[in-house]
């Protein structure tokens, strides 16, 4: 090959190398030193709820959840990639858009509740605030700050270690690792990186027993200044269907069948009851990342869930019903064919759920 031609192709080679190496080089910009201790960083993350921000985040879920068609959106959230634009001022003033190629679902939160705009359904839904501790997860629950505050709340100091700082969304982020020590825990570790100055979590990765992450959520762009308040208000467009919804999981279950007053135990399988969401038929047991919820199921709903579970390849038949696991999530539909049916779901072992169900099955009214 003549020298001139060789020189020309060399220019092409250098250009390709520069272009290919550019993203890699940007990723190698060193992060800060991360001087905060693990406990101090966790404290800063927990007190960051009023720090405004806006940006773009993506979450990738690795869970395959056997859920009935009525709640397929939950399976999508935890088993798929969710792309989110967010504008956040405070817990009662925010907007999260879950975007797709051909549409988006936006949730505006204000002091009275939420507006949900679903472009694909041409539907605007007003939900008034509930105090429910158990609610249908939404994309907003997958944002790194929300996940970090949830998993790190009440974390024991002994379970926390410092991670090296990383650059995330163009910012230097200090890291902390939570390694739950409870033998019943199915979450083996949670890695969190947060903006050192404000405590806004920028990335959270949750691992179960295997090496693949069960959930990886991170900002790709973030701006820590207050967003324009005009972006946080919503008015339904003309021609859209407008409806109201009570928005909480128990409300949806109640619509499907009657739930009578029940008295749940103060502790199950050694886990104290930490919430009920205002419903006697619901119990939240444990806290931080090692917890589970017990829900009494009306007749109609438990039947369809049992059928779905029975068809799932990971389902195991237990003495007290059907159990399944996906990553760190365990679920048990406790149903001995009698009058009482309970759904237990959480980040604890199936054995723990089976033990807990033995105290629940004698309860219930059989409606």
């Amino acid at each position, binding site marked *: 090959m003549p020298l001139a031609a060789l020189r020309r192709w060399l220019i*092409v080679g250098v250009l390709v190398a520069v272009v290919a190496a550019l993203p890699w080089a940007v990723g190698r910009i060193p992060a800060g030193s991360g001087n905060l201790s693990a406990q101090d960083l966790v404290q800063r993350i927990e007190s960051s709820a009023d720090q405004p921000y806006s940006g773009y985040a993506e979450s990738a879920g690795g869970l395959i959840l056997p859920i009935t068609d009525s709640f397929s959106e939950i399976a999508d959230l935890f088993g798929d990639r969710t792309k989110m634009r967010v504008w956040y001022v405070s817990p009662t003033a925010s907007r999260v858009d879950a975007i797709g190629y*051909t549409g988006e679902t936006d949730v505006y939160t204000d002091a009275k509740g939420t507006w949900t705009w679903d472009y694909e359904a*041409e539907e605007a839904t007003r939900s008034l605030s509930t105090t429910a501790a158990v609610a249908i997860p939404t994309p907003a629950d997958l944002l790194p700050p929300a996940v970090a505050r949830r998993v790190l709340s009440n974390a024991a100091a002994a379970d926390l270690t410092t991670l090296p700082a990383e650059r995330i969304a163009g910012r230097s982020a200090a890291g902390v690792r939570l390694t739950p020590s409870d033998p019943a825990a199915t979450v083996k570790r949670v890695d969190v990186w947060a903006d050192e100055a404000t405590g806004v979590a920028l990335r959270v990765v949750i691992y179960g027993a295997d090496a693949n992450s069960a959930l990886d959520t991170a900002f790709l762009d973030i701006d820590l200044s207050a967003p324009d308040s005009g972006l946080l208000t919503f008015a339904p467009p003309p021609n859209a269907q407008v409806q109201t919804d009570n928005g909480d999981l128990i409300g949806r279950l109640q619509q499907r069948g009657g739930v009578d007053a029940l008295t749940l135990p103060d502790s199950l399988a050694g886990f104290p009851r930490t919430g009920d969401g205002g419903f006697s038929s619901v119990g939240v047991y444990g806290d931080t990342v090692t917890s589970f919820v017990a829900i009494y199921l009306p007749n109609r709903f438990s039947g369809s869930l049992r059928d779905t579970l029975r068809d799932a390849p990971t389902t195991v038949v237990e003495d007290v019903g059907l159990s399944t696991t996906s990553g760190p999530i365990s679920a048990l539909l406790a149903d001995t064919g009698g009058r009482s049916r309970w759904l237990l779901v959480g980040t604890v072992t199936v054995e723990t759920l089976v033990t807990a169900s033995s105290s629940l099955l004698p309860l219930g009214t059989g409606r």
Partner: protein
Amino acid sequence: MIAVELLKLLRRPRTWATILLLDALPTLVAALLAFTDLAPRPGEGPVFLSAVLNNGSLFPLAALAIVLPLFLPIAVAVVAGESIAGEAQAGTLRYLLVRPVGRTTLLVAKLISVIVFVLIAVVVVAATAYVVGVSLFGVGSFEATTVSGTVLTPSQIFGRTLLAIGYVTLSMLGVAAIALFLSTLSDSPLAAALGAMAFLIASSLLLTLDAANVLAPYLPTRYWLSFVDLFRDPIRWRDITRGIGLQAVYVGVFLTAAWANFTSKDITT
């Protein structure tokens, strides 16, 4: 040189036949919608097609979404693939280079004529779709709802449609550069066009695989449909700027490769 290439492009019946064929599909879709009154729901079918029954002025966007994934890139690959290889196959390349113009200038002139072709094709498709859309569906209240549920005024619809036309045009530059490079490698325009299409099909396929996520930001079709982001509120510039940047990289790399090959090549035909 550029003017000569542009005149050649505009005088060629094939150019207009290609644009006419590009126009035919959206027009057929509009006629079927008007005849049956059956529009897909939002989020189903091509973007914005659901809204055209209420506002025909949105049909240019739906028309772009109809031609963008396949027909427009095929047309661009055919025109760009023919640019050098077509001259070689017809035996005119040697005579073309006898003129006192450099090979680099010829390459740039060919690329510019392909860009002009893309712009004409996109504008003609959009303009025809506007006329067809407004004639068949009317314009309703003259307003349209964005993907985010806010309302756009007619001037906002017009402005954002112009931006979408510009973005779709830029999105085709990568295909044009790839086909132009292949056109310098082969004497067969068909081989160059099919090579470029193979590249695009591979890109579209890889985008559907989670395992190929690491490659996604480099794939030429990655940001093609991001013109939808112009119709969110506020406009989402993130993918649009990345899409433009990616096309610039493809043009830079493949045009340089085309230059390296074409200026070093023995021209025998």
